[in-house]
C-alpha cells in the first residue's frame, strides 16, 4: 500500500490539478460571469452563456412602404427597401424575443425578407466553417489516403522511401507549415499562382477573400495530414488476409470486384475511425487560421477553437470560453458514442 501510494501519488495529484480539476472548474465557470482579470465579484448567471451561444431566431420583415404612394419604396438602384435588423434587435422593449441577438445572415422568399439572428453569430459561423471543412476534407483525405496506402503497399522498390516522404508533413510543425504556405499562397509572388499561371489562369488572392480562404486552408491541411490516414489504411490493408484475394482469383473475380468486395469491406472499421478523427480534427482546427488568416476575412476562417481562444484570451471572457469548451466536450462525447454504435452494429 505504501509503495503504491508513493509511486502513484505524483501522477494522481498532477492529473487532479491539471486535467480533472480544470475540467470540472470549466463546467462550473460556464454558469458564471467569471473573467480572466476582473474587479467585479463572480456571480452565477445560470444558463445565460449557453443560451447566448446557441440562441437563433428568425425575423420576418416586409418591404418598407412609401407613405406618399402606398407602393413599396425603392432605393436609388430600384431595389426594395427593408427595415434594418438592428431596429429590432436593439429594441428590447418592443421585441424582447430578439434581445441580445445580432444578424447572422438574411435571405428572401418573394418580397419578404428573413433575417436569421443569433446570440453569437461568430460562433454560428465558426460551426458552419468547421462543418464545411470536415465535409470537404473527409472525402479528400480518405480518398487520397487510401490511394497512397495502396501505392506504398505494392511490392515496389523504394516504397519505404515513398512512405517516408508522404508521412513527413505529419511530423512537421503546423506553425511552420502554415507560414511557408502563406508564401506559397501569396497573390503576387506565390508558387501556387505561378503554377496555375502556366495554364493561363489568373492570379487568385487565396487567403484574402472569403470565397477561397477556407479552401486554401483545406488543401494545405489535406496535404499535411494525409500521410496519417495513409498509415492507418496501410495497417488495414495488411490486416486483410491474402487467402481472400486468392480465393476470389480462383473464382474469377477481376481487380475491381476484389477491391469492391474484399478490400472496401475489410477497411470499414478504418473508414469509420478516419471519418470520426477528421471530424474531431475539424472542430479542433486552430493553428492554420490563427497563423494564416487571423480568422478572416470576414470570419470566413474562424473556427470553434479560434473563437474560444478569442473569447477567453483576447476578450478575457473565461466563462463563455469555458461554455464553448463544455459544448466541445459534449460534441466529442456524442461522436464517440456514434462511433461505438456504428462499430458494434458492424460486428453484430
Amino acid at each position, binding site marked *: 500500500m505504501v509503495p503504491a501510494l508513493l509511486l502513484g501519488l*505524483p501522477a494522481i495529484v498532477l492529473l487532479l490539478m491539471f486535467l480533472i480539476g*480544470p475540467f470540472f472548474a470549466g463546467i462550473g465557470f460556464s454558469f458564471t460571469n467569471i473573467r480572466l482579470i476582473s474587479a467585479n465579484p463572480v456571480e452565477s448567471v445560470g444558463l445565460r452563456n449557453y443560451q447566448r451561444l446557441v440562441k437563433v431566431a428568425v425575423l420576418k420583415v416586409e418591404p418598407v412602404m412609401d407613405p406618399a404612394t402606398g407602393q413599396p419604396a425603392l432605393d436609388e438602384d430600384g431595389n426594395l427597401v427593408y427595415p434594418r435588423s438592428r431596429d429590432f434587435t436593439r429594441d428590447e422593449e418592443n421585441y424582447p424575443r430578439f434581445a441580445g441577438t445580432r444578424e447572422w445572415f438574411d435571405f428572401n422568399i418573394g418580397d419578404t425578407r428573413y433575417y436569421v439572428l443569433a446570440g453569437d453569430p461568430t460562433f454560428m459561423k465558426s460551426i458552419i466553417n468547421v462543418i464545411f471543412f470536415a465535409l470537404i476534407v473527409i472525402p479528400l483525405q480518405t480518398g487520397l489516403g487510401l490511394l497512397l496506402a495502396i501505392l506504398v503497399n505494392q511490392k515496389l522498390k523504394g516504397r519505404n522511401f515513398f512512405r517516408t516522404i508522404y508521412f513527413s508533413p505529419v511530423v512537421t510543425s503546423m506553425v511552420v507549415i502554415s507560414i511557408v504556405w502563406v*508564401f506559397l499562397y501569396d497573390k503576387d509572388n506565390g508558387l501556387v499562382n505561378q503554377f496555375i499561371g502556366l495554364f493561363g489562369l489568373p492570379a487568385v488572392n487565396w487567403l484574402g477573400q472569403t470565397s477561397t480562404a477556407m479552401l486554401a486552408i483545406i488543401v494545405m491541411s489535406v496535404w499535411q495530414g494525409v500521410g496519417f490516414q495513409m498509415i492507418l489504411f496501410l495497417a488495414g490493408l495488411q490486416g486483410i488476409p491474402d487467402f481472400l484475394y486468392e480465393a476470389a482469383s480462383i473464382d474469377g473475380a477481376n481487380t475491381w470486384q476484389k477491391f469492391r468486395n474484399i478490400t472496401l469491406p475489410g477497411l470499414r472499421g478504418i473508414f469509420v475511425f478516419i471519418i470520426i478523427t477528421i471530424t474531431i480534427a475539424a472542430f479542433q482546427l486552430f493553428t492554420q487560421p490563427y497563423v494564416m488568416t487571423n480568422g478572416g476575412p470576414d470570419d470566413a476562417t474562424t473556427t470553434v477553437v479560434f473563437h474560444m481562444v478569442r473569447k477567453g484570451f483576447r476578450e478575457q471572457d*473565461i466563462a463563455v470560453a469555458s461554455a464553448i469548451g463544455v459544448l466541445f466536450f459534449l460534441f466529442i462525447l456524442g461522436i464517440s458514442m456514434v462511433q461505438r454504435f456504428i462499430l458494434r452494429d458492424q460486428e453484430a
Partner: protein
Amino acid sequence: MTASTQSVAVSKSSKRRLPKDWKSKVVQYATNLILVIFFIFPLVFMIMASFKPNDQIFADLRSLRAFLPVGDLSLTNYQAVFAKSKFPRFLFNSLFISVTTILLSLIVNSMLAYALSRLKWAGQKLVLAIIIATLIIPGETVIMPLLLLVSKLPGLSLTEGITTGWLNTYHVQIIPFIVSAFSIFLFYQFFRDIPKELDEAALVDGASRFQIYYKIILPNSGPVIATVTILTFIGAWNSFLWPTMVIQSEELRPVMVGMQYFFQQDTEWGEVMAYAAMITIPVLLVFLLFQRSFVQSIASSGIKG
C-alpha cells in the same frame, strides 16, 4: 489495382507475364514520382529560398530554379535570423522544456502505471477507471479554465519570494503537461504484458517493489518508453497555443511562438524560410533516424479514440 491483388499477381507472375507487370510498374513509379513532388515541394522551396536573397527568390519563382540551389547562395538569411531575433534563446527554451517534460513524464506516468499493473491497493480499480475516462477529455475543453487556474497559482521566486501566478515562467510550460492519461494507459498496457515471473523471482531475491520497477520493469520497456518520448516530444516541441497565452516575456518564448513573432515583424521571405528550416530540418532528421517508432507512435495516438 489493390495492394494485395497486385501481390497475388506478382507471386504468380512468370516470364511470360512480365510485359504486363512491367507496364503497371511504370504507372506506379510515375504516380509515386508525381506524389513525391507534391509532398516535398514546399520543403524544397523552403530550404532553397533560405539561402537566396529576396529578389532572387522572386525571380526564380517563374521557373524550376525555385527548387534548385542555383544563383547567389549565402548564409545571409541565417545570420539575419540570429541578428533580428533571440533564436538561440528560443531554441534553448524549447529544448529545455521538451527534455524536462519528457523526463518527468516518463517517470511520473510509468510509476503510476506500475502501481496500477503490479501492486494491490485500495482504490486501484477506481483510479484506473478514472484514467480511462479522462482519455476522452479534449485539451480544448480544459485549456481555458486551466489558463485562469495557472494565473492564480502561487509560485516561488528566488528574487521575489512567494508570487501569485505562473504566467511567464518555465514551469507553466512544463508541469501541466507532465501527466498524460494516454501515456499512463500505454505504460499500463505494456507492463501488464511483462511476465509476472520476473517480479516474483526478484521478490524472492529480496528486491523491493521500487527496485523491481526500475531494475526489471523499466529496462524491459524500451518500445513504450520510445513511444511516450516521441509523443511527448512532438507535443512539447510543437506547442503553440498554450505558450501564446501564458508567455509574454521574450526570454521564455519557445521556437514556434518565436517563429510566429518573427514572421509578423519581418516579411523578408528568405529570413523566415531560414528560421523555418532551422526548426524543421533537425526534427525531420530525427524522424528519418527513428521512422518506424515515429510512425507507430503517431498511429497509436490516433487509435486511442
